[in-house]
């Protein structure tokens, strides 16, 4: 049986051609793709920029970091299957969970930042320029319908509105362009999760009970208003450490983490930094030092996904 001809190649009416071309030409934003890659734990190089951009503008991103505690597992499970890693042992599986959680830290920051990006008057990213459409544009829709031979008013302004085919109420063509940015109804979900994450972390003891075998600066999770510039730097450093470890450069990871500890006393990514340090030390064969960091991790963040891995390192049973 032969392949049917595409409609566009078969000389449809001009209006149909226009509809087909418009639909085929539609593309998601790069940011949309980056966010998905970040959530999946891949393409960190590209998505790191998105996460940083999000973090730098996210007024509420103090909660974003906390969100990793709850979101890490889900993302990690995706990463586990995605990577095709055979989880034949708990050790391997938990390792993946940690990667997922770390990467998700960046992802949540980026997602949380999206709302701010969309609505901030000073948005500097390549977010949709919804509000940038000049008022003069409101006359343009008429040209479309002229080309298609369809009244402009046949299309409703509101997402929920239903306009019958016969509707020709005047002025509705201006609706979409004059209305403000769409309400981000889905964003609070992320924010709510994040708030819970922060609460849990705030309840955790911040003091390190057992002295680690190596010097680890006190881990303080900051729930104060975000210094967006610092948050972006934090994301970059943690990302650098993670990337170094992933490429086998444990020393590079430790250097990035040392820099992180030196520069930030109120950290948004405390658990992730400890986890990366622990794994880096293990990679270097510094088992005792790694155990010290593991103790810090379990004491400071007993409920974090990273703590489960730390307990394994300590030889403890996972509760």
């Amino acid at each position, binding site marked *: *049986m032969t392949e*049917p001809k595409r*409609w566009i190649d078969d000389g449809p*009416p001009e*209006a149909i051609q226009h*509809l087909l071309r*418009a*639909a085929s030409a539609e*593309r*998601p*934003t790069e940011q*949309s*793709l980056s*966010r*998905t*890659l970040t*959530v*999946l*734990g*891949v*393409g960190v190089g590209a998505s790191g920029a998105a996460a940083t951009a999000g973090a730098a503008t996210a007024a509420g991103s103090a909660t974003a970091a906390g969100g990793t505690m709850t979101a890490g597992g*889900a993302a990690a499970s*995706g990463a586990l*299957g*995605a*990577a*095709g*890693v055979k989880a034949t042992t708990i*050790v*391997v599986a938990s390792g993946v969970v940690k990667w997922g959680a770390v990467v998700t830290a960046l992802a949540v920051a980026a997602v949380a930042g999206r709302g701010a990006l969309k609505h901030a008057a000073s948005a500097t990213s*390549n*977010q*949709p320029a*919804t509000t940038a459409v000049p008022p003069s*544009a409101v006359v*343009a829709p008429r*040209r*479309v319908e*002229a080309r*298609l*031979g*369809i*009244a402009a*008013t*046949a*299309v409703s302004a509101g*997402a*929920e509105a239903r306009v019958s*085919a*016969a509707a*020709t109420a005047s002025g509705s063509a201006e609706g979409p*362009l004059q209305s403000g*940015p*769409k309400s*981000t109804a889905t964003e609070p979900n992320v924010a709510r999760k994040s708030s819970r994450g922060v609460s849990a972390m705030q309840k955790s003891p911040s003091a390190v009970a057992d002295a680690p075998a190596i010097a680890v600066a006190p881990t303080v999770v900051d729930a104060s208003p975000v210094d967006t510039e610092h948050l972006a730097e934090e994301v970059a450093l943690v990302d650098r450490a993670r990337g170094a*470890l*992933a490429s086998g450069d444990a020393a590079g990871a430790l250097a990035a983490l040392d820099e992180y500890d030196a520069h930030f006393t109120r950290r948004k990514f405390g658990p992730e930094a400890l986890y990366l340090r622990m794994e880096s030390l*293990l990679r270097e064969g510094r088992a005792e030092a790694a155990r010290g960091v593991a103790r810090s991790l379990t004491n400071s963040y007993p409920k974090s996904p990273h703590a489960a891995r730390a307990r394994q*390192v300590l*030889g403890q049973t996972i509760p």
Partner: protein
Amino acid sequence: MVLLGTAMVHLTALTAEAEPAARNVEQFVREHYGFTWRVLRRAGLSAEDADDAAQRVFLIATARLSDIQRGSERAFLFRTATHVASKAHRSRRRRPDAPSSEMDEPASELPALDELVDQRRARELLDRILAELEPEVRAIFVLFDIEGLKKNEVAEALGIPPGTVASRLKRARKEIEARVARLRARAQRTGGLP
């Protein structure tokens, strides 16, 4: 110490195995993201909702990547996207045939303003027409005429014989053309056209 040694071995193995696989995942996502996102859009989701839904689709798809046969990726993604879009509609208590506002049109690769607005309106009109079609007819049109899938791919995505694709496609085109003609006639009656 034994456990530590084991952990180190596993960590090394994990890093060695996961890195190439992760790159494949990235390639898979990059290759099919636009397709999946547009399918979600033509299913009536706003650009913003399509962003979120696409994430869900790829979380599901990448978790099952080893189960997806080569050449069947888009069929799998289409089915998953249809399911996710349906859930998104339900969760928002929207009617599945609700075309969404395109106010959050992507800003990347923006054409000239006139052309952008032009395309937005055209897509709104198309989505409105598609929403009036039966789902299986709409799906064939979207997959074949908009996304350019081959007939066999469409058949696989929809779980129908390849021979049925052509007949339903013909029906879809006929219905779309009729609706466009109807809108045109109505517009002319009401003086909406020059």
